[in-house]
């Protein structure tokens, strides 16, 4: 592992509560820049909660956490959110807008040039569907659009919540290749999945979650 590269994620006994229920019951974790990590575990193990904590979307109840240089206890969550990219398995965009309109919205929000959109769309293989409303896309195509949204944003930390769910082999292969590029480019990627990644090209660190904490860690 490239342990001399800077730390992007540093969690110590991180607890996240929702209505008194501990979604995360004490997670200690360090992730370096340019690393790929897969978080596995059963439903309700805390995979999505961990990713949401890293995105600054849920509050830290106790413990300490620093993500992308922002302290989750005292820092500005908006600053953190601008540095991370989130892709949920459900989609993540405005259904009534087209592929292009969704990307234009994201680019404008982040004050990025909109000129890259066409090439990003071509990169994720949606060139023919650029003016299709998002709700008409298949699950796999939506996932590709999500990747396009992240490519456009170039976040420091990529958080992908079950990106492999309901993808065919071609889609998986495409995903693996793209994640390989991203990691090679220096970004940090955390992926949640039901099962360990069965990829020929990627050598991720695999964390196993159960009961809201890490119970297994294999590089």
């Amino acid at each position, binding site marked *: 592992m490239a342990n001399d590269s800077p730390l992007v994620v540093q969690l110590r006994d991180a607890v996240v509560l929702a209505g008194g229920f501990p979604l995360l019951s004490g997670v200690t974790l360090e992730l370096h820049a340019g690393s790929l990590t897969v978080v596995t575990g059963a439903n309700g193990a805390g995979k999505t909660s961990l990713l949401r904590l890293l995105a600054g979307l849920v509050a830290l109840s106790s413990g300490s956490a620093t993500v992308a240089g922002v302290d989750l206890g005292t820092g500005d*969550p908006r600053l953190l959110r601008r540095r991370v990219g989130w892709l949920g398995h459900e989609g993540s965009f405005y*259904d*009534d807008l087209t592929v292009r309109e969704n990307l234009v919205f994201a680019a404008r929000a982040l004050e990025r040039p909109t000129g890259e959109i066409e090439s990003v769309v071509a990169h994720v293989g949606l060139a023919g569907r650029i003016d299709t409303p998002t709700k008409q896309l298949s699950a796999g195509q939506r996932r590709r659009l999500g990747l396009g949204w992240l490519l456009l944003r170039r976040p420091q930390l990529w958080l992908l919540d079950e990106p492999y769910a309901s993808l065919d082999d071609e889609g998986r292969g495409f995903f693996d290749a793209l994640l390989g590029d991203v990691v090679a480019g220096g970004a940090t990627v955390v992926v949640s999945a039901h099962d360990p990644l069965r990829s020929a090209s990627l050598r991720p660190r695999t964390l196993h979650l159960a009961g809201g904490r890490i119970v297994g860690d294999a590089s």
Partner: protein
Amino acid sequence: MIRTALLVAGKDLRIELRSRVLLWQVVPFGVMALLLSGLALGPANAGHSSAGPGLFYLVVLLVALLMINRSQAVESTPGTRSSVATLGLDPAGVFLGKALALATELWLTGLVLLAGAVLFLHTALHGALVALPSIVVTLAALAAAGTLYGALTAGGGGAATLLPVLALPAFAPLLIAGERSFSAALGGGALWEWWVIIAVALAAYLAIGILLYGVLEES
């Protein structure tokens, strides 16, 4: 802030243009509610009642409730809230943008309902035109208040039923001020008191929205 506001307003209006929920669901509902108001007055009063302005505003409030829920619903499709949150938009700008889009929709719907009041309830056309400025400002205040109350109830238990309980007491002064100034316009006069109420309400909601919308989004 203004840039974010225009971006968000443009996005909301574009979604509305695509989905046509306003045209096919909200406006027909409003027209039907006006017709029902006429029926409720009884055959003797339906055509020549002084209740026109009051019924107009009552229907506007009902329609506004639907539109507020709709305005929040476009943000609530699974995953959208998370990925939009990671854009790190300025909350004050988001508030202004959503309020502006809602106001635009309310103005359009208000015009149709005003025509309906002239047609069905025989409200004098000249008076309706004189009342137009007060209607425009009252609906803007409704939009600002509605955006706040929409964000307060979004995602909580029973959002659709909670919204009216919270919003209607706050809408009451706007209903009163709007109705009174409309009636005054029909009678050929104008009363400054009602402009004070409308302007103070508009200013208060805009100020609270700009200051506190971020608190509501942080969740």
